[in-house]
């Protein structure tokens, strides 16, 4: 029973991390370690909670280039999921 509950709590925690990791505009600022790049491959066993985000979000699995893959690679470092405060992006000429 204790093992099952631990697994459930772990799955829920990972789901929260994953949701923050691929949603730049969602929720408040969150801090914590993250493994977003492989989070999208979740969706089995105790990590089933991540399937809604990661499993269907190829953008966070198949990166378009090496640079982007490096930026988003799994890390043990602290990651902060910030809610941006800039106005909606329109014709500002963002790169």
């Amino acid at each position: 029973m204790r093992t099952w509950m631990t697994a459930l709590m772990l799955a829920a925690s990972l789901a929260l991390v994953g949701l923050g990791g691929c949603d730049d505009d969602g929720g408040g600022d969150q801090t914590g370690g993250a493994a977003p790049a492989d989070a999208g491959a979740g969706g089995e066993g105790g990590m089933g909670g991540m399937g809604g985000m990661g499993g269907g979000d190829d953008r966070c699995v198949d990166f378009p280039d090496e640079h982007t893959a490096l930026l988003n690679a799994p890390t043990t470092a602290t990651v902060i999921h910030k809610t941006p405060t800039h106005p909606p992006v329109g014709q500002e000429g963002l790169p």
Partner: protein
Amino acid sequence: MQRHTLRWVGALSLTCATVTPAAAQALDCASLPGAVFVSGTTDVKPYLARVGPKLSTADDPLTIVYLGVGSCTALDYVLQDVELAGTAVYWPGGENADGTPVEGTCDFAPGSRAAMALSDVTVETCTGAPPPADVGERSSLVQGFGFVVPPNSSQTAITATEGYFLFKFGGEAGKQVPPWTDPPFVFIRTPASSTQLLTGLAVGVLGSQWSPNLTASQNGSGALLAAVAAENTTGNAEKTIGILSLQRYDSARDRLKMLAFEAFGQDCLGAVFPDSTAQSLDKQNVRDGHYPIWGYLWGMAPLGADGAPADAGAARLLDFIGGTQVVNGADPVADAVLAGAVPPCAMHVQRAYDGAPLQALEHPAPCDCAFEKVAAGSTACVACDDATPCAAGICRFGFCEAR
């Protein structure tokens, strides 16, 4: 126009110092033993202050006579043959009561010229063109940059898009980025500063094209550090932000707070600090490619007919900075780490030019173990020496590296 790129795979972390007021008794800089005149970025002074005292007191002394300015201005002294004038600093050896190295001042005689320049950006970034054929350009240490706020600010991160709006529009109505909406509290440098140029490349607004609304421009990294720190208790901490090199930040962590940064295209991960945590000193995210605001320290020097730096002192200093040879206790790797820079041998990514995309790097002679030992105070690597060789891997800088 042929580009002379002299290979510099070593440690080079020079932080240009702010010029100290002239002493009452002016000393001719040229009279110092083994004087080499260096114009350089103000971000390299912490490194120079570490190695300078040891080099100037070596058996064959090399005294770094340093004029701290913005990176592009530093290059002008070499590229445009600008005369050095005023007062420079140097490190004669010895320590003050607080443990800091003794810093001396001297005056340039009329007609003085820089033997070399140190810049965190390339000639091409500053001028739009490669260096002339008679000027060598060598890359060395990795120097990071970031956004800083006063400790009393509640902010912890900034995204590249926020940075874009901040610097492109400068608080213009409808384009604001709360809480940084008040231009007088957005502390920037100048278009000649590598800090501003490299930060600009990271947020998509060239450092030469930031909003004219941003008038809180500081002439040196020391001045910017002081300006941001001064707002900690004025009631303006929350709306204050600035840009600073990691070398400068690491020497003032009790006065400032570094923000985590989320680059363009990094929304699958989020924002990260240059280090693995806000408190650590390991530069993990700079080294492994998660934190992209960095550039190489470049040494530029006029070349002689043989293709080597024309000035013997400049050649020695460039060789030292880009090498791994310890000279009279001055360690181009360890001193770089302690100053807040990253030797190339500890990097796992590289880039082809300022602001270029990151590429994975497998350094041929890595120094990760030594870096971790110096930066973090400990390493899981096995220690080694001539009497205790490695069971596996290569013994380098006292530790068994994987290759």
